[in-house]
């Protein structure tokens, strides 16, 4: 154990020290060796070079290469045009994955945003506000794998004649029902997985929306009350319209996250019993079937789905820069 600890420490020191030494060395070199006029032109690129290098090596080049590989066969030897894409679009399992992903998108986004908003508005009215908010936000710190273990235990199934140790089936049995195989029954297993994601993401939505709700000026709410609006009307007619832009940002964020959902499905069901999603399918094509062409094609489909968000982000950024 001690040797392992030392190895870890050494690895950490080398990793962290290396990068800091790099910058100091490069800067020293430029300061020493270049005339001051050239310095001003070279120095920005020295500061940028490491970032540009890793961005190119890990994001830009691989993205371009993946698009390229997606037009080739399994082992990337023969150019096959759009065969991979056509195969995927006619593949039943892939359609199941698309269908499930849409179900995930609609339910996770819908439920966690609306529940997050309701909790934010309710908690705003009580004195012990931080307690429920902390408890609901806490799952954000837990990894998808950790959350999956937590919920596998909640969903644990045992035959009817043995004591249930999963809390959900224990409740079902005590209410007089048969125990349910939450993760194997095809009618419900997708919902069981989606519930985990809602459990993880509601806190995030709540925190963002709560900040927006608190940003609404008190006198606007007061004016609405003076005009005789009740709390429900205020919620729908005042609060919602005033936090619309935050709602859009939160929903977009959750959508991007859910589009790429992988860990939960991988740990809980490995995509069996009709629970496949796009990202879990990609890992299967890549590792289990060793089909790099189709794996890449799935990744490209994911990217295409995200491009609208990318364009919106860039547009918003340019507006922001124009007003700076």
């Amino acid at each position, binding site marked *: 154990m001690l040797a392992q600890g030392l190895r*870890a420490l050494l690895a950490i020191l080398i990793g962290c020290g290396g*990068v800091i030494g790099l910058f100091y060395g490069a800067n020293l070199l430029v*300061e020493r060796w270049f005339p001051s006029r050239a310095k001003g032109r070279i120095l920005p690129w020295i500061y940028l070079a490491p*970032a540009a290098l890793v961005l190119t090596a890990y994001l830009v080049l691989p993205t371009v290469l993946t698009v390229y590989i997606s037009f080739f066969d399994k082992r990337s030897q023969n150019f096959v045009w759009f065969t991979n894409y056509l195969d995927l679009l006619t593949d039943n399992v892939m359609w199941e994955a698309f269908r499930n992903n849409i179900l995930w998108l609609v339910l996770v986004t819908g439920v966690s945003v609306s529940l997050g908003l309701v909790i934010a508005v309710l908690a*705003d009215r009580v004195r012990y506000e931080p307690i429920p908010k902390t408890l609901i936000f*806490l799952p954000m710190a837990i*990894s998808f794998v950790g959350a999956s273990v937590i919920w596998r235990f909640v969903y644990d199934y045992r035959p009817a004649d043995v004591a249930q*140790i999963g809390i959900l089936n224990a409740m079902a049995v005590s209410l007089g029902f048969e125990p349910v195989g939450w993760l194997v029954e095809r009618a419900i297993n997708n919902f069981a997985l989606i519930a985990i994601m809602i459990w993880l993401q509601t806190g995030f939505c709540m925190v963002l929306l709560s900040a927006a709700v608190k940003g609404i000026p008190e006198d606007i709410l007061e004016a609405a009350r003076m005009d005789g609006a009740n709390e429900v009307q205020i919620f729908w007619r005042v609060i919602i319209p005033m936090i619309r832009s935050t709602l859009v940002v939160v929903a977009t964020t959750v959508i991007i996250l859910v589009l790429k959902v992988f860990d939960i499905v991988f740990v809980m069901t490995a995509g069996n019993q009709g629970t496949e999603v796009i990202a879990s399918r990609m890992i299967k094509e890549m590792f289990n079937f060793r089909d790099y062409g189709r794996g890449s094609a799935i990744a490209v489909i994911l990217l295409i789905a995200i491009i609208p968000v990318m364009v919106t982000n860039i547009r918003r950024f340019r507006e922001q820069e124009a007003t700076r």
Partner: protein
Amino acid sequence: MLSTSPKRGYRQPPKGLARFSELLQKLPVHVALVAISLIWTLPSIGLLISSLRPKEAVLDNGWWTVLQHPFDFTQLTLVNYLDVLTAEGMGQAFLNSLTVAIPATVIPIAIATFAAYALAWMNFPGRQWIFITVVALLVVPLQMTFIPVLRAYSALGMAGTFLAVWLAHTGYGMPLGIYLLRNYIGSLPRDLIEAASVDGASHLKIFTKLIVPLSMPAIASFAVFQFLWVWNDLLVALVYLGGTPDVAPVTLKLTNLVGSRGQDWHLLTAGAFVSMVVPLGVFFALQRYFVRGLLAGSVKG
């Protein structure tokens, strides 16, 4: 961030009957909040309690039976933790996670801060375009990069090494780091930086003596976000470290444990808690930075 006074809904504390009627009016709100909090917390409590119970008890009856004798601590034990840390290799995985996560946080911070300073305060052609590229890369799904990078790693013999994961996380965390830090550094007062440069301070001096200390809140937010992201990551570890168990981090180890010991709940619950203890500590200790980093970083690819 999670606690914000002043409160809405009351001006001065009501008295007597008025107070009772207000309580009654708000009763549905209280009930709803307590119910939701309970539903959200029960699964984690179940995990924690089960991880402390002996094997036979965990597998024989539900964890809630402990609550019948809440002060009988003899029904609890630490033996599951000992087993999972030593025999099941979770201790090694814990060290691996630290070895992966610390450099994979420090390296991107250093690189991103330098780049952010250059993008915010140095003049050179193409500055705007580089930053637009960074904004675009922010949401690129990591899945787009796995196959080419893995192939390059295999060709270089780097698959299954710590260096491979450090660099991968550095690349994947870079757009967010640059975006976050450049926005923060760019909003520092112009006079301050110009005054320093008129006084003859070099860029490196301005950077280390002025920019870094002033940007600490943003750096801390990014650090917390990146550390937790790396610690909780399964996908990157699976792709680049998948075949080599002696470098596997806690998430990967726990996933394998679910596969090999799927019904041994006494071990799974303890293992899950071992994997969660660091993020939970960070959550409670650095909540402010945690929330800020999370909000800023939620769009990561």
